[in-house]
């Protein structure tokens, strides 16, 4: 079972986006977000990474859904663009008709590639460049991230199997939540 939950910052604490959405008085901050990736009861990402722009996370989640449904891998990059060593999440469809999808995390330390985005218009180069670059180094990138996770004693998000349908559903839900947050912020901005 996989659960993807979007978190936002409130008073320097991570709180679920849905609680912000459910609180009329809460004004979402769109420049900071975190993602809880829970697979089989293990939490992988929350509390360690600020993934930045909510809008960008939502747009990427939506792109991931399209790519996975089309049978290809999908990448979700941290929405933070002014820092080095930010996380990328790799979602891969099943290799066999009834197999599992897989979720992994990796980092890009290459000076040029670290700016690349899976979405056009959000960084350097065409998204295809990022996918090609990752495909060539997939195993090494994931292994390096796993090593790093072990060093800081956090669960390794490396080739973790998940039901494909659930993965797509959760990404879709994530995109929807992000969109709702952006909409709420816009509405509050309009109302002053």
């Amino acid at each position, binding site marked *: 079972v996989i659960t993807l939950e979007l978190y936002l910052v409130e008073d320097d*604490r991570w*709180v*679920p986006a849905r609680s912000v959405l459910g609180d009329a008085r809460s004004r979402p901050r769109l*420049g900071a977000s975190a993602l809880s990736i829970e697979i089989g009861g293990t*939490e992988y990402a929350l509390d360690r990474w600020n993934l930045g722009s909510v809008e960008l996370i939502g747009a990427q989640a939506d792109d991931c859904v399209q790519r996975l449904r089309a049978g290809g891998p999908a990448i979700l990059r941290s929405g933070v*663009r*002014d*820092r*080095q060593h930010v996380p990328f999440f790799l979602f891969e469809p099943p290799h066999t008709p009834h197999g599992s999808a897989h979720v992994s995390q990796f980092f890009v330390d290459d000076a040029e590639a670290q700016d690349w985005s899976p979405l056009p218009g959000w960084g350097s180069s065409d998204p295809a460049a990022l996918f090609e670059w990752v495909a060539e180094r997939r195993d090494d990138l994931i292994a390096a991230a796993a090593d790093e996770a072990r060093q800081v004693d956090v669960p390794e998000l490396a080739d973790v199997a998940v039901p494909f349908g659930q993965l797509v559903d959760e990404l879709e839900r994530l995109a929807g939540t992000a969109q709702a947050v952006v909409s709420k912020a816009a509405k509050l901005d309009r109302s002053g």
Partner: protein
Amino acid sequence: MSEFDTNVTASRADQREQPRRRAPSPVHRFTVGSTHDRAEAEADEIARLVTSAVDARTGRPTGPSPASRIRRSPAGATAVVRRRVQKDPSWTTGPVGSVTGGGWLSWSQQQIDEKFTAVEQAHHQLEQRIAAAEGQGAELADASPGAQGLGAAKATYDAWNRPITWKEGEQALKDINVALAKLDGVSERYAAQQSKERNAWADALGRPLAGALLDGRYTLEQLKDLDGRLGQGVLAELGRGVGIKRINDLMELLPTEAAIETLAPFGGSYLLELKRDIPNLPQIAKGCTHAEVEAVLDTVSRSAANKLGTYRNAKRMMAEVITPLEAELVELVAARLESEQIEDLFKTLTVARVKVMAGTKQDNRVAKLYEHRARLKSLQVKLKPADKIVGYWNSMQTRWLEKLWAGKDDADVAKVLTEVGVDALNSLLPTMEQAKLYDLSTRLSNKGLKGFGEAMPGKDLTAVTAPAGGAGPATPSDALLKDLGSNHGATLKAAAKLLGSGIDTVVRRCAATPLDASKTASFLSKAVTYGWKNSASLASFFDKAGANVEARVALFEDFGNDGNRGTSPDVDGESGPATAVHECVIDGVTWKVAEGDVNHYMSGHVYATYAMTLANVQRGTSSMWPTGTTRATVEQDAGTVLGSARFEALARAAGNDYEAGAAGAFRAGAQGKLHRMTMFHPNPGTQLSIPWMEAVYYLFKSRT
């Protein structure tokens, strides 16, 4: 007080919506028409009685203006004078003129009201039945039993359509009931209608009204109509005869909204009847005011808990009862729950839910439950067997543990751990994740540690080693303690004054690192200098710093020496004032470095103004300008890059989107939507990774 009497009655009667009579049949007219003069005379008589009524308490004449007591239709030959049975001035509270067993009986205002209301309602019902029967008039022969019955009924109606005395009340009710009986059989259709209404009363007395509702014999509209015709309180009275089982049937068979809407006419009385029906509370709550629900809960108290206790399937209880409730109602319920019920609630929680609970605002409902700390403590004690504890423990994140221990002193913690039992702790220790156990141990003072240790024969906390990357607590060696005591007594004393019992934690954490007595004293001295007083945050610092305590402290000082006080705001990119600091024109378009952009650079890459928030720290590895860099320097560098050929290339590549890349000794980002250089920092600059900055963050946090 006597205001309840004629005046009030008249006023109340006026306020009630009166059904219009049907147009009179040629045979049995009931409108005033030719009797107008007589009616007016009666009205005048009533008015006289009313205005002459005297308040029994004040002795003053009572009553509002006559217009509110007698309502006449607009002038016209067929206008109906609305007359209702009225109390005469004898209907006042006071001693009854009889003695029972030597004691005076008093009849209360309520008794008077009830009696008069019964007469009034019966009279009103008779009026309605007459009007209904007149609707059938065309079908009745004058000499038919039906017509005769109708005539008699009308006579009775008229006879009691006047002020009546207290003594007359019984007789009036009797006569009216006889008249109602005489209306039976006026016509087949009328009989059918009458029968239906009688059945309604029969339902109230015998069969549950809910059954009638379920059988579809009453639509919601009919129910509302019935409510309006019978007057306030009658349906509520009926509701008391319904019974819980039927309510449950109703709830199960009807969609929630429909059930609530259907039950709404019953009002608060119905709620009281439902007081033991807590599982339906969410539905009930939707249809009632907060005050009404609170009143019910106040009434039920322990019964509610017992009812919840009957839920064998706690998950179901959570899903059906607690989850649907609004947060404030959960609080109301929780305040009335016994610890067993709260425990049941928590048994239903999945790992995911525990995590959801970790933030106070993540689930308001559960957060409300957690406000009942005393019961939570009880819950902790009761969390047996050990594997359950371990399961919970290992599923908890650090912040959740912080919340768990918040507000509890170490003695409490030790007591809880002791009460969990030795066997449980023995099971707990080897199976608990190292980091969690470590986290627990850092939260215990000497006393807590002692309690913890005593509860675990054969084990002590020196066996607890640091998790990877962290420095776990250790029992300071005698040599270290002796050295600290002999050579750094003043520092120890000052640190103890600042940290309180937390000094023990800090010394233990230092003892688990390469710090010797001198360096430990140096750390404690800096704690005093910089005000690191929160031992929990210091524990988190040691977690992040691992063996690199001195290096992280030095990094903290880099920030502090540059003037960072940990209060700089966290500024997101593409935010803040758009006022230009620098501008350049590229292909006819003006690009700029805005004031908000500089704020953003400063909050993420400059020592003096780096925002000491977790959100900022956790963005990724920070590329820092050298220490001592000022805003003026950053602005100057930004202006240089903005005007460079490299940025020009980035801007062209961005178009209406975003493009980022290296620009000499910097990295820059061109946001085409805003025409601003929204990203800018040294490349590579001083690289500060998240764990490093987290350690620094916790040192800043320990000052608060």
